[in-house]
């Protein structure tokens, strides 16, 4: 493979972005709708601008979205009552929920995955359960959680927990079970105690795989939070989306999508850094 200049990928990204924005802008440009000459101005006043002008598309242009984004980012922490808080506060709520649900899942999944990985028998016995529970959508868990837990805040966290536990569990188990035999054999010949072997040999060897599982899980947790908050409501970025959808404000929904994406990327980058830090080169 030929080497390329280091600035080339960044430049390519920017070009792709510009093309995308350009297409978007052209596609959503307000068609000079013909104003119906018979339309009663009194009547037109009662309608939305787009309906009155006879414009088909209500898709916002990139400029609209940037405007809205600026409005939201300018004052992210305002609090106009229970149902109207700034986007910063909403994100903080969502992040708190995610870290709680994800943290609990990690606390359960990693030790448990370790055990399963050490014992091929357990691995095989539990595999069907994990495979059945893994693909269940967060929205399917929600009614059950609301009904049994009887608290919507805890239900939301439970749903994040139950959805983000599986990738971590599977990856931990897989990582632990595939540690190279030679390393374990060497440790055995040196008469290393089991607990010490677990922490000094197996854990470091399996760490990169475990971290990969955690990254997948955190991604899932961030996906789930939006769905859960849309359903349960109250606070969070998911509620923000729902509230703006309620007002059919596609502009704000796109802003929220952008924000959700960026936060998700930051979370993944952070865990990526940790992964680099725990893995070692042979």
């Amino acid at each position, binding site marked *: 493979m030929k080497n390329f200049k280091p600035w080339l990928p960044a430049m390519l990204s920017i070009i792709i972005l510009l093309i995308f924005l350009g297409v978007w802008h052209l596609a959503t440009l307000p068609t000079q709708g013909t104003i119906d000459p*018979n*339309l*009663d101005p*009194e*009547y037109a*006043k*009662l*309608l*939305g601008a*787009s*309906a*009155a002008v*006879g414009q088909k598309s*209500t898709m916002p242009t990139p400029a609209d979205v940037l405007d809205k984004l600026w409005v939201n980012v300018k004052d992210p922490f305002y609090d*106009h*009552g*229970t*149902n*109207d808080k700034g986007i910063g506060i909403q994100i903080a709520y969502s992040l708190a929920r995610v870290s709680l649900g994800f943290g609990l899942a990690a606390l359960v999944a990693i030790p448990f995955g370790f055990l399963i990985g050490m014992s091929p028998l357990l691995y095989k016995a539990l595999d069907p359960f994990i495979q059945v529970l893994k693909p269940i959508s967060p929205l399917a868990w929600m*009614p059950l959680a*609301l*009904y049994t837990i*009887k*608290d*919507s805040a805890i239900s939301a966290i439970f749903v994040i927990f139950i959805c983000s536990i599986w990738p971590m569990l599977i990856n931990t188990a897989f990582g632990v079970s595939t540690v190279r035999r030679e390393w374990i054999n060497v440790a055995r010949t040196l008469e290393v105690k089991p607990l010490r072997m677990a922490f000094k040999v197996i854990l470091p060897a399996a760490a990169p795989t475990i971290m990969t599982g955690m990254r997948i899980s955190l991604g899932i947790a961030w996906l789930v939070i939006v769905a859960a908050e*849309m*359903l*349960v*409501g*109250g606070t969070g970025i998911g509620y923000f989306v*729902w*509230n*703006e*959808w*309620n*007002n*059919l404000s596609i502009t704000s929904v796109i802003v929220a999508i952008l924000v959700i994406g960026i936060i998700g990327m930051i979370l993944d980058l952070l865990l990526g850094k940790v992964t680099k830090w725990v893995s070692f080169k042979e």
Partner: protein
Amino acid sequence: MASFSNPFDPNSKLGKGCQCGQHNSQAAHDEAEAMNTQQLGDRAVEGAIMRALFPHDETRRNFLRTVGAGTAFAAISQFLPINFMQEAFAETGGALEKTKLKVGFIPITCATPIIMAAPMGFYAKHGLDVEVVKTAGWAVIRDKAINKEYDAAHMLSPMPLAISMGVGSAPVPWTMPAVENINGQAITLALKHKDKRDPKSWKGFKFAVPFDFSMHNYLLRYYLAEFGLDPDVDVQIRSVPPPEMVANLRAGNIDGFLAPDPVNQRAVYDGVGFIHILSKEIWDGHPCCAFSASKEFVTTMPNTYQALVKSIIEATAYANKDENRKSIASVIAPANYLNQPVTVLEQVLTGTYADGLGGIQKVPTRVDFEPFPYESFAIWILTQMKRWGQIKGDVNYQKIASEVFLATDAMKLMKDAGLVPPKSNTKKFFVMKKEFNPAKPEEYIASFPIRKA
């Protein structure tokens, strides 16, 4: 005031006039007796119980004649905590058990009194600090209310009945102390159907209603059936949360909906639909949404409950005045409450609106706010639940109605608030010109050619 006439008196007249014959109505007689509120309240509670146990005048009278009023009362109070209920009712102005409350609402104009009572100080006036919390959908608001996350909640008026009976959820004794609004819904169709104004041509349409247990569902089914369409066979009716309705109408997933406002007006505002008819053309004065609370809340926190219902009743009365509608529209429009353009809400509340076909309609009674929970409303809802197979078997209409729709309480609280409550717990009404007689629910169901039961 029929509700306060003494049901323990076997000699009171059933028709016009009072028991002593000197006044031309029982109400006048009662006023002359000048009871204090305490006695009146006690009597109202006893009366409600007596009526619930013996809904037929004939049976009740025979029973009273045989055993005497005192014995009857003693016998009944053995089984029912009448004293407790009287106390619960009587302690007006007593200390509030709880002042910080959470009340859930769905962002539609039906919730106007519940919402505006917070920013306009109706709750505060009665010493309550109420947080009104926007909620995503009817199933969620039901679950949150049952789970006690909310002390009281905005519901569709069939929901307290369904919850009490355990239809669609676990059975929890639920109550409905006040109706929120009457009328205020509409059938909206996609613009492409603007030439299909005859419901007979709607075969194969896909409709949306907000919830299975909603007036919207029953009114739409009723309307379609009157035009010879079987709502379970000829069309498809799905339950779609109100905010998603306009988006679905735009996408062509549905052909129309019977929905609460502002959804209908919003469809016009966004140029995707037109208002076919207002729900008042199906049944003028139909109840829609309700203020509801669990029976447990009513009995364990009687003072709070009364203060809360009084705030709601007062807010409802305020909202009902035409001159207040515009200012209310601007109070409830911000993102914290309905999150809608002010002009949409103004059109809904003032009744001067664009119909989506180029005309401006002026219907000042498009939506009205009347709190009184008539028991006959409940009975009609129950007949429709049975008609469409949501409930099966024998239904004790009167008992369920009076247990859930707290008409007697509402009378007293309306009086306390300086309003004039209706004279009776029930009233007759017409749905598409067909009279409903609450005394004969089964006959009413049987009179419809299209039904499931």
